Every structure is written in C-alpha cells, then in structure tokens.
C-alpha cells in the first residue's frame, strides 16, 4: 500500500474532539496511518486528517450501512484496518423517569449498536490478516453506574460485556479486544457541565477533582496513552480486559 508505506492502519471514531482527537494524534505519532471518523465534518475532522496525514471518514455510525461503508472506504484509501478504536458516544443526562425513549435509543444506537456493526465490518479483514486490535472506550459509569445517566451507563456496560464476549470469541483468531473505562476527563464536555450547573469552568473542574481520590482529572492524552498501550505489541497478553485510568473513582474491577 503506497499511501501508508507499510504502516499499520487505525480507525478512530468520534475523533473530531476530545479523547478521539488525542487518540488519533497519539496513534499517528506512534506510526499508525489513521482514519478519523465523526458524525459530521464541520472542518475539524478534515483539519485533523490533514495534520496527521490521515483520512477523514465522516459518518453517523448508528446508521445501518455506515459501518460497512466506512470500513470499505478506509480499505480502499488506506488498506485493511489493524486497529479499531471505538470511541464515538452520544450522551444525554436526565432523570430516569423523564428520559424519553428516543434519547435512550439514540445513546444505545450510537454507543453500542453502531460499534457492534462497525466491529462486524472490520473483523473479516483482521481474521485474514491473522489478528488485530479492538479498543473500546467504555466508561467508569458503565461499571458503577451514575445518577441521571441510566441510558449512557447501560450502553457503556453493554460495551464492556461486548468487550468480554469478543475477547473470548475473537481471541483465538489473534484479534484482541479490550476496553478502557475512564472517569472524569478534562474535555470540552466540562464547559457544558459547568453551564448546566451555572458555575465557572474552574469551579466545575474543582468539583470533579474532589470526587477523584487522586484529585486529578484525566487529560485526553492520559486516555490516548491507554489506547496506544492496548494497540501496541506490548499489550499482547491483554484480552477481554477493562483498564480504568480513573484515578481510583470506581474502586472495583470490571
């Protein structure tokens, strides 16, 4: 493949900002040819792809054909995908009894079903190649739950079970599926949370820090580092595992 010079190929969903963007940058720095996906390209996706010499593949992964279509485009432009980072997520906070069904399904469709179809689309080529890596960005809330985040937590818990099932089913084919369950991360979402709470961004950061035993918010680079580790040869004995770079918030093993 002339375009990738023999580099391994990674696809990162939800890459326009935050953890996905940091992950694309990190994997590119680690030598991967990186395709970046997000629901729409408002310019950020293309800018990121240009910056890392990668490929922008905008698509709503919850749409029925977008998984196979995205994988086909990456295959044509870069080559078969070696590493899939399942990061795209929809999130809508709200009391359980007040959450409309469409918001439940939106979160489940993107977070869980969208990645289910995407994984179905990447596995055949990984099998042919004799292996691959699937890194799923779950959430600490998928392990311990969270008030007013029932659908989000359930979708992320579903991803953890998917990680374990695929770990067992695909492990013998050399395809290693693992997950990362972060907690509070210093991303653009914090400003949204601050606006919702009617406080400043710094006050929001401090509130979250107080919930974390090590009193430190994760940076997007911290989470990207965990992805890079799981995507590397160094993590060859990890399968079906859930890493929790969460500063001690969850106090349990998933």
């Amino acid at each position, binding site marked *: 493949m002339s375009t990738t010079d023999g580099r391994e190929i990674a696809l990162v969903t939800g890459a326009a900002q935050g953890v996905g963007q940091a992950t694309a940058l990190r994997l590119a720095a680690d030598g991967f040819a990186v395709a970046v996906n997000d629901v729409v390209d408002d310019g950020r996706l293309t800018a990121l792809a240009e910056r890392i010499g990668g490929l922008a593949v905008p698509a709503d992964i919850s749409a029925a054909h977008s998984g196979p279509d995205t994988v086909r485009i990456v295959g044509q432009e870069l080559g078969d995908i070696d590493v899939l980072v399942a990061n795209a997520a929809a999130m809508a906070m709200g009391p359980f009894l007040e959450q409309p069904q469409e918001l439940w399904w939106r979160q489940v469709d993107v977070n869980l079903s969208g990645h289910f179809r995407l994984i179905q689309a990447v596995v055949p080529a990984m099998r042919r190649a004799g292996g691959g890596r699937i890194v799923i960005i779950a959430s600490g809330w998928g392990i311990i739950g969270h008030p007013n985040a029932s659908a989000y937590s359930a979708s992320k818990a579903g991803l953890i079970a998917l990680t374990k099932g695929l*770990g*067992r089913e695909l492990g013998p084919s050399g395809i290693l599926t693992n997950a990362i369950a*972060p907690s509070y991360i210093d991303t653009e979402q914090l400003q949204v949370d601050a606006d919702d709470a009617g406080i400043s961004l710094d006050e929001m950061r401090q509130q979250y820090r107080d919930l974390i035993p090590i*009193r430190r918010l994760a940076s997007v680079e911290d989470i990207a580092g965990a992805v890079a580790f799981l995507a590397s040869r160094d993590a060859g*004995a990890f*399968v079906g595992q859930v890493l929790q*770079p969460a500063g001690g918030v969850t106090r349990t*093993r998933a």
Partner: protein
Amino acid sequence: MSLSAPEPVAVVTGAASGIGAACVGRLARSGWRTAGIDLRPSATDMSAELDVTDREAVRKAVEAVVARFGRVDLLVTAAGYYEEGIPVTDITREQWDRMLAVILGGTSNAFAAVLPHMLRQDSGAIVAISSELALGGSATDLHYVAAKGAVLGLVKSLALEMAHTGIRVNAVAPGPTDTPLLAADSLWRRPDYLASLPLGRLVTPREIAHTVHYLATSAMYCGEVLSPNAGAVI
C-alpha cells in the same frame, strides 16, 4: 530531583529471575537505574542479596539505594515462589506461614521500606505483582492464592491512603507466565489447559514487564489491577 542521578530509579524485588528480571531489563532499556533485591545476585545496577521476609534487611537495602542514587521512583514487588498440586488439607502450617511471609510479608516489607522516601519526594510509583489466580481462584494452590489475594487488598487500600500524595499504587495480576516458577510438569503448561485459554498460550515475562512499565509511567491509575492473562480471567 538530584543532579547526580537524573535517571529515574527503580527497586525490584525478585529481580534475579522470571518476571522481576524481565522488569529490570525493560526498565534499564528505558533509561532507569535499577536496584535488585533477591536471594541471588541480580543483573542490576545495584544488587542486594537478602530474604524479603527480613524487614530490617529490606529497609537497609532501600536506604543504600537512596544513599547511592538519591531517590527511589518505582518499586516493583516480584519476589515470590509457587507451590501447586497440594490439596488444602495437606498444606502444612509451615508451608502456609512461609508463603504468607514471603508473598504478603515480603511485599509489605518492601512497601514500608520505600514509602518514607517517596513521601519525602512527594512522588513515586509502586507496582505489586499479584496473580490472575487471586481474581479467579484456583483449586490446587490455596496458600499461594490467599497470599496473592491479600496483596490486592494491600494494594487497593494503600492506593487510597496514598491517593492525596503523589504516590500511585497498583498491581499486575499476570496469567500463567513462562518463568522458572512454573515447573516443567506444571498443570499450567499442559496443552489441554493452554487450549482452554482464548490466546492458547502462556504469557511471557516481557509482556508482564511492559505492563509494569506502562503502570509506572501512567498518572491516572490508583488501586488498579491490570491483568495480562491470555484470557484466563475475563
């Protein structure tokens, strides 16, 4: 950080063989100074031969490391041994006491030896080697599994007690690993057992060492148990 020793400094127990030796190699390749504690000499920058059950000897060995290198940034506790194929009723008092003394006591002794220095530095990382068996249980080596399980309780509690400091405490729970601890006729080397694992093979000491290095250099883990185990416990 001391000007005379800009490289980070690691103390590794059980450094002479197996997982401990692999950790020493991995860290040295990344520019760390290494100090080994083992019954036998280790291929480290500074080797101390002693029994980790001797709390005072461990303390003095770590003092000597700090005296020479100026600091201690990482402790890896890999000292241990393994006995399998013993029904619970046949585990003698001596076998039980020795296993707990080496694995739990030895780990605790090493923690106690490095903590005053790390607290003074306001930084440090501790990575304890436990076992996948401590997560899933095992039918043939109860004293070993009890000791390795106790190490996880120690790690999780110390992690929370140290959380407000700059000291991060975590564990690695390896799956069956290809080291001298596994006898040639070990149950864990049998083809029928390996075929039951999703990855169908033993874990390598290098893979454990990579995991230790990753934990040692990552900021967000607190009381975490990472288990590179080839699928033995999912």
